[in-house]
């Protein structure tokens, strides 16, 4: 699936670029960014990826997705 391949790259890219502070700060900012700009299906794909181990994800990106997971699943259409 094309989107699945790209969401990992995109999440890592956000985590690296969005904040230069601590990993925790980067994770919170990344989670907020993904919640604001990614459609529900993309969010579900990255949630599923982390649930399956989160291969190739930077720690801050993985933590961001865990924050999103804790906020609950995306709303259905």
């Amino acid at each position, binding site marked *: *699936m*094309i*989107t699945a391949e*790209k969401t990992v*790259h*995109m999440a890592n*890219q*956000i985590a*690296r*670029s*969005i*904040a*230069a*502070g601590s990993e925790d700060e980067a994770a919170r900012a990344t989670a907020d*960014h993904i919640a*604001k*700009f*990614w*459609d*529900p*299906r*993309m969010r579900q794909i990255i949630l599923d990826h982390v649930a399956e181990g989160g291969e190739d994800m930077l720690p801050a990106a993985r933590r961001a997705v865990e924050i999103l997971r804790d906020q609950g699943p*995306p*709303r259905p*259409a």
Partner: protein
Amino acid sequence: MVYGPQHDLGTPPGAGPHIALTIDGATVRVPAGTSVMRAAALLGNDIPKLCATDNMKAFGSCRLCLVEIEGTRGTPAACTTPVREGMVVKTQSDRLARLRRGVMELYISDHPLDCLTCSANNDCELQDQAAAVGLRDVRFGYDGENHLAMPPDGSNPYFDFDPAKCIVCSRCVRACDEVQGTFALTIDGRGFASIVSAGTPVDDFLSSECVSCGACVQACPTATLTEKSVSEIGLPQRAVVTTCAYCGVGCTFRAEMRGEQLVRMVPWKEGKANHGHSCVKGRFAYGYAKHADRITTPMIRGSIDEPWRPVSWVEALSYAASEIRRVQATYGMRAVGGISSSRCTNEETYLVQKLVRAGMGNNNIDTCARVCHSPTGYGLKATFGTSAGTQDFDSVAAADIIMVIGANPTDGHPVFASRIKQRLRQGAKLIVVDPRRIDLVRTPHIEAAFHLPLQPGTNVALLSAMAHTIVTEGLVDEAFVRERCDWDEYREWAAFVARPEHSPEFLEAVTRVPAADVRGAARLYATGGNGAIYYGLGVTEHSQGSSTVMAIANLAMATGNLGRPGVGVNPLRGQNNVQGSCDMGSFPHELPGYRHISDPETRAAFAADWGVALDPEPGLRIPNMIDAAVDGAFKAIYIQGEDILQSDPNTRHVAEGLEAMECVIVHDLFLNETANFAHVFLPGSTFLEKNGTFTNAERRIQPVRKVMEPPAGLEDWEVTQKLAQTLGLDWNYTHPSEIMDEIARLTPTFRGVSFAKLDAAGSLQWPVNEAAPEGTPVMHVGAFTRGKGKFVVTDYVPTDEKTGPRYPLLLTTGRILSQYNVGAQTRRTANTIWHQGDVLEIHPSDADNRGVKSGDWVRLASRSGETTLRALVTDRVAPGIVYTTFHHPQTQANVVTTEFSDWATNCPEYKVTAVEVTASNGPTDWQSAYREFSDRARRVEDVEPAE
């Protein structure tokens, strides 16, 4: 508006305190610095003139505007004589009449007497002035030495030059110098031998440096320089003021009409974006509206393997609506979406996003700004609080330092480039940050103080190095920062950029710009007076596009260069309505006015007005739509006025996505490349065929007025409305003004906008509301929209796109003066004479290494794909960098660009692609296969549409 030339006051306005004088017995008060000619014209007493015109400095050569002034000897020229307090002027007397007739006799003695067959008959200042001075005879006769046998020059595709009719008033030469700033024309020779000359003696207009802006044609008082269209059609009968549909400058024009035939587009002097100037595209390249390729009948087909079948509007819209509903029933509500166009009006883009949100029940709406200025929206909202440039264009006249980053204004925004050049010739200093040596770096009478030719992809590093210099050398405007910005955030940012690893010396290895130049440019920007930044897609189309926009904002805040004329952060928008399409809620996460879809209060306001519940989740951006389509999760799309196959990156991936969809609805002027994958084609209307508004790069909302009927019978907003009605929505707009009323009702920054107010004011710059009823030329005066300005730490993160042994060069892309984006419009005009195909600029050393010469076919390959095009060997690009445009579908430069994109917005990284260039002798397999497919996909059944 009945046809007539705009009133010419003769000389530019004065700017001093008002003073009073008497002209022909009447008292007039005008600003000091006004000429007697202009003061008289303001009274309604036009003084005869030939060499004077009000957008250029007085010249005083024709000697027709002589006046008598009490207490002054002789008869001074009114154009070069400034008013004085208490001055008493007489514009008409027997003596003046005699003198003027004598001057006019000399002109006419060397002028063809072919008025009845002349293209300018009844629209000729020479003819008018001969009448005005009462010329009845030419005592010198017509047999003396003259210029009547000089051959005409018809080389330019849009205008003719007939030197036999020239009176050597120099208006054309001065227009080229003062207004356009190209200096292509000159007066060659002396005395009687003086002639207007384009370029060198061996040049004609086409081969000269003339950029065909039309300023000389507009300035010419005779038929010496005349639009070919006037010669072919005749003089106009009426004029309608409207707004250009090319770049984001938003020039306003008088569309001069004869019946429903457009005779010419003449820049409108009252236009606040262009002040009566134009470029080759807006002035001349409108012929696409009548091109034989226009599709004027709706068409449908069940599969892209079938030929198109012309049908009625009802059948096409019913089929489109039923397919949208079928797809949603089969794959879910979010399996469909739409794309609005930055070429269409505000009202049209508003309706497309409303159609998606209210009719399709999701937020899968995006716009072509995704692939150009979406990082501007993100970056400026984060730092200043609103997604727009800070200044009006006039602000540049007060700039002392002009920094151009990743933009090529002389090609992309030529009319504003002329304003920049005017200011630079007055003494402002220029800094250019660009991998290429763009024309602005060194052009007649202008040379950049600094050109920083950075390595593509290192914008953030370069701006960090400039910030480091400003912070560590004590050049910060601390008073501004303390008053206007969040101090704690500033301190965090300042500490970050002050680190040694952000010094120009350390980062020189990354940017490849000498540290001394970076320091020099930073010092100049910080200390040189008013510093104004203008930037383009060389900033945004990167993996760190949004970071770069924020880094620019940081720099402006740190130096106090915000909140007054002459300064600011100014995105130069690529298309005519990029700003407007973004304002109108075309992004999948925002409702009109840049308010997030998750905000319950905003959503409730729209839901109440529209009578539907709105999905609170953000939708798909264009690249996400393509990915989802390849995944099989996104199945239908309505695309208004955008050719994503040619314009978006990684063409093969876009093609794969489009092919995977079950219903692609293309609403456009032509069967574009995207339409090869479409199932429904809805004929579009050009800007000449519709009413509405565009919003330019300075937030200026300007009217678009219909001058001819759309050939398919419907304006684009009407087509969208009919599609919405077919989907079951109760829309009943009867005019775009009603759509604007709804926008104003729901959007705080547009609250005071209406068509009536726009008609009265000519244009309005948003915000237009209770606090700023007449609009807002300069934003963030006194305070930022968000309150305190926000410094955002922007760490340089190298792009993942790397050169290596296989792809050792970096490709960057852009556009040129004569062509516009995917070329759908300009390729269907005579502009092709200047650009018949995309070429690859390559440095001589890289060309030598590959055995490539200018004109050779070369193969350009990346990990995404490959294409072939001709090479141009030039040191305009640095070693290791190649450059091309993306105007031609035969090239499809985006076959080569990749899926990498800005981290915040998914704006594609067009400006950095690792490539290799090799000699070639023919098209690539992709090009051959695509050409064959394209020919097949464009077949149309030869049947009459059913009613």
